[in-house]
């Protein structure tokens, strides 16, 4: 296979990434060997890897995700405490230790991010917060994919009065000050258990996250449905449902993926905001927002309580946004030149 490329190729002749596909198509056939074309995804992946910020984002997101998933377990195995473990046997007045300091004030590996007011390990809390924040972001994005894509695709494909009605519903939901509504919802139905509150948070965030997705998919479908392949599919007797979900939705995948990756940080930020206000995730569960809320009360004395969750969250959101931008450029090379 001639997929191997001259490593200096790009330095010698500068080929804009938009032309990479054409270039891939004219590779010579070596002997009788069958040459596979470069797929859209492999091509996009190659363009993504050329984008330094996107690669940085990808790595950071990868590390933080991995650390959030296995971190609390590793800490439990190594040091023997869970994120909500409050030491009971120690009699010191101040339980919040600075990073890398033990109860005796000497250097120690036990709490690399220090401890909070109750003496809980900050690192474990930040990682658990990461688990919840990422989980909220991903679940809400999946909801937005499921509802938003179907809703938008149906509205766009059916068109006419149905489309008008469906999109006006979206407009109405859009125009509601959703943060206020979510706050009202969350405080009205305030659940007794932290887990119940978490589920309520999912519902609240999920119900607003699909609106933009529906609009994006509708727009895509509107322009796709007049293409000849849709007419061809109709002429072969394919049902409307099948045309929408088998023919049209896969064609909208590029923009949908891009928007989904940008939805994750947006939802995470909203979640942090709600938790910061005290209506989101409740102790003993932690999220980056609630950790920051706790930390800000003691910012003058115990700054690490705010700095660590804050920096982790900022870094993650930055990285996700970089990754989303990189994906957009990689999947839609024409857009960048505009």
């Amino acid at each position: 296979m001639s997929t191997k490329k001259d490593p200096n190729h790009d330095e010698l002749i500068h080929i804009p990434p938009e032309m990479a596909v054409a270039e891939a198509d004219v590779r010579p056939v070596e002997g009788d060997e069958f040459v596979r074309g470069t797929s859209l995804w492999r091509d996009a992946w190659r363009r993504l890897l050329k984008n330094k910020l996107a690669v940085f984002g990808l790595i950071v997101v990868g590390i933080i995700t991995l650390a959030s998933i296995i971190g609390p377990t590793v800490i439990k195995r190594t040091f023997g405490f869970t994120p909500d473990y409050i030491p009971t046997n120690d009699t010191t007045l101040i339980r919040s230790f600075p990073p890398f300091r033990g109860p005796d004030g000497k250097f120690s590996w036990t709490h690399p991010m220090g401890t909070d007011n109750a003496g809980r390990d900050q690192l474990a809390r930040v990682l658990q917060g990461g688990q919840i924040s990422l989980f909220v972001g991903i679940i809400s994005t999946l909801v937005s994919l499921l509802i938003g894509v179907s809703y938008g695709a149906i509205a766009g494909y059916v068109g006419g009065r149905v489309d008008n009605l469906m999109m006006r519903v979206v407009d109405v939901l859009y125009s509601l000050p959703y943060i206020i509504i979510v706050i009202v919802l969350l405080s009205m139905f305030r659940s007794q258990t932290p887990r119940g509150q978490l589920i309520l948070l999912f519902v609240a965030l999920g119900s607003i996250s699909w609106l933009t997705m529906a609009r994006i998919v509708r727009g895509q479908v509107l322009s796709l449905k007049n293409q000849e392949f849709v007419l061809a599919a109709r002429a072969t007797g394919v049902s409307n449902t099948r045309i929408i979900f088998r023919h049209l939705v896969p064609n909208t995948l590029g923009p949908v993926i891009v928007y989904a990756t940008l939805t994750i940080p947006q939802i995470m930020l909203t979640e942090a905001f709600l938790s910061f206000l005290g209506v989101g995730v409740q102790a003993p569960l932690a999220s980056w927002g609630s950790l920051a809320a706790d930390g800000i009360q003691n910012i003058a004395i115990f700054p690490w309580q705010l700095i660590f969750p804050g920096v982790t969250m900022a870094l993650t959101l930055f990285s996700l946004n970089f990754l989303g931008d990189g994906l957009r450029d990689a999947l839609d090379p024409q857009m960048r030149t505009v």
Partner: protein
Amino acid sequence: MTSTDGNLLEIKNLRTYFETEDGTVKAVDDISFQLKRGETLGIVGESGSGKSVTNLSIIRLIPEPPGKIVSGEVIFNGTDLLLLPNEAIRKIRGRRIAMIFQDPMTSLNPFMKISKQLMEMTQLHLGHTKAQAREHAIRMLETVGIPDARMRADDYPHEFSGGMRQRVMIAMALSCEPELLIADEPTTALDVTIQAQILELIKKLKHGTGTSVILITHDLGVVAGMTDHVIVMYAGKIFEQARTTELFSLPGNPYTKGLLRSVPDPTAEQGKLYQIPGLPPDVAHLKPGCPFAPRCDRAEEICRQEFPPFVQLNADHCSLCHFAREVYSESGGVPA
């Protein structure tokens, strides 16, 4: 009205109008014709003459709104397709009436493997299982002459050339062995050598399966080589209707004559190409009288005043013109 008279398709007084801001566009206005089993019918005309709308009307794929089939009958094998519920017409599309579209570049779904698109057809209509459908798809690809069909079946459309994609479209259209194949300008987007191959392929497959074909084109050369009957359309009307050989030798309508004169003659010396003066009329604002009158070189006062009659020149030949008989005689025919 069963198939005893040999008609597979009979269209009676079909009218398809489009409501636009500019008024009602009578894209197809009172058209009638028949198609016998196993025959090929050519429909020719300039762009916007209603060729494609006629055929989309047959399988009810007119975008509604703005389009609407106002009146008429489309009798296919004895049933009026215009009266069928949506569910029933969907079972006919692809199964009994298949279509090939003009641009093979855009009529395949770019996100679906060739095999999947072919399999969709037979799974839907013939109840094939995945494995059966796949085998059938590969067999169809071989039939239409895709080399290495087994290997190429899992390619995406962009990995195929234009001619190959049109072959795939034909394979798809014929995979359920339809009784009627509607080919809407199947070769317009292809270069000449590929055109010949594709036409040859359609011809061969038609003989093999006995499928009737409606061939829409604006290439008179294609019509001459492929069809038994020809319909000439202009401004949503049938202007002339005859057997192919007769139409080319003894045209009975000034418009057909103009079209025939417009075909460049490769043996003639370099010079000016003939063209019919003017442009096709705006079908939203048709004046009374003959729609071709402003462009016609033999138009007289009556042409601008009265709509021309549909003159029967002989058993198989009709022409929409006040002077049909005269034109026919000039061509050398003897009107009945």
